């Protein structure tokens, strides 16, 4: 049980990523490939977020940062009280990159469809050869 709690997230990360990777490589439908790609990316995001989690911690917004005159209170902040902000920022970027890639991939899919009248990779390759 201890082992599962300690590593559960990471095991799921690996499984999710591998589902995504397999889908990207093995499926023939272009939209499915893109969905797999998104799944693969979320796997990585989950990996980062899991490494930034801390047991018994709060979201990374400093509590009682200001006094009533809106001056910052200088206090000693305990690192373990707040979740890791760094991994979160990195993953914000990754999400945005992911959706940008998804959008571009979808645009390409539409172009492929209007060119070959198909969304199936095998069918397209067959029509080309």
């Amino acid at each position, binding site marked *: 049980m201890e082992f599962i709690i300690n590593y559960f997230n990471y095991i799921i990360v690996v499984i999710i*990523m591998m589902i995504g*990777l397999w889908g*990207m490589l093995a499926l023939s439908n*272009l939209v499915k*490939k893109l969905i797999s*790609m998104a799944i*693969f*990316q979320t796997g*990585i995001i989950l*990996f*980062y977020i899991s*490494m930034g989690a801390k047991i018994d911690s709060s979201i990374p917004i400093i509590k009682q940062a200001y006094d009533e005159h809106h001056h910052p209170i200088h206090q000693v902040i305990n690192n373990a009280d707040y979740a890791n902000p*760094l*991994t979160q920022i*990195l993953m914000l*970027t*990754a999400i945005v*990159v992911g959706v*940008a*890639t998804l959008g*571009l*991939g979808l645009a*390409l*899919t539409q*172009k*492929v469809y209007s*060119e*070959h009248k198909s969304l199936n*990779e095998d069918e*397209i*390759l067959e029509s*080309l050869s």
Partner: protein
Amino acid sequence: MIEQAPILIVVTPLLAALFITIIGLYRPLYSWVLTIITFVITSIFSFITLKKVIETGTIRYMLGNWPAPFGIEYVIDHLNALIVFMIAVVGLIVAIYSKHDVKKELGDKIPHFYSLFTLLVTGLLGITLTGDAFNLYVLLEISALTSYALLALSKGRAYIATFNYLIMGTIGACFYLLGVGYLLINTGSLNMTDIFVILSNNPTSYAVLVAFLFIMIGMWIKMALFPLHSWLPNAYTYAPTSTSCLLAPLMTKVSVYVMLRMMTSVFNYNYIFNVLGWQTIIVSLAVIAILAGSIFALRQDNLKKMLTYLIVAEIGYMVGGAWLGNANGFTGASYHIIADGFMTLCLFLAVGCIIYKIGDAQISSMKGIFTKMPITMIGFLVGAFSMIGVPPTCGFFSKWYLISGAYEAQAWPFMVALLISSLVNAILFFRIIEVGYFQAMPNEDPEAHPKQQKYNEAPISMLIPLLTTAAILIGIGLYTSEIVTYLIEPFMDNFL
């Protein structure tokens, strides 16, 4: 302003891309001029930086003035200053070259093309300069996204080829990101120098090894190392000419540089060679890449596609050289980044001129092309000689170092593969020279048009970049000694 030169290298094309987009709404034709101005400025800044690096050594530029592991920093050492300069110059050359071609192939998408073009170069410049592992990922994605768009701006088969590239490229980038994640979880840092220090002090765990493995695989996908190359030939073949001229010299080479960077300034070079001991396997991979690239190239009858397979072979050179694990091999690999960048550029520019005039790149349609386009063919010849490795072009000198490295490391298969690849290149290019030099034989092609063989040269704005590149090839060759002594050797002093 001089202290800001390193950042201006990246910021200038970034701002330019925005202005090109905005101005392009009203004056689409200005975008060409703007792009050229941008790259002139970028080249100047990168030259200033290069000079400064030679004078004072590694420059560290802190973005937002945050000290190193907390903020993002740019680390400009001898090698990447050189590569940045190369990227800027290649950008400038292709920008000048693209004028007619873009007008012909892309029509009303000109401002978008140039905007993506400058952003692509921005991304590549950033990748080369940055000292932050995650920043590198973001820039990698910028260059990847722009390149997908630029490649797909063509018609027909380009779409599905680019789609494949998108899938493969994303896998590569994700593997890289995963590797960085493993580094982060082990060291808590993203700054390359910081990671290097932390890793050097700690006994290395299996997780670090996996981090290294995934970063390498990610980069190998991006640089199209055989057998992960399948996306490259089609994507580059069916792309618009100007796009392939820009991407072919830069994309894969920058990935190679990232690999070198990871091997030297993130992981410990000694760790890689003394602890991991993968070099035999990876040099063998490189050998296979060289041979496979050459063999596939032999089977093509489309010139552009043939060149794309040559890129695959050349990647084998660089990967092999870097993994020989000695100074000569590393020098060869890093010198070859520059050399191969310009070689590929030269050949693609020449092929672009041919496509512009003839309409396709089938070798069979090039009969009598020496009479028809003599100036283009001069450029082509110089590029071809460089690929074969004829002195004093730069291709010879990179081969010199690579073979030296192979000899020192006793990597005989690699040495033989290098020589075989040179010979195959000779065959490949002389096949074209033969077709082009001999007119259509009367008994072979009785319907050869006499008209076909009239003098009909590409426009001057395409020829000047081509000839400049050809001159650069020889220039680099003659200045090999300076490049190696002042730039590559000081860089290698850091880790060897």
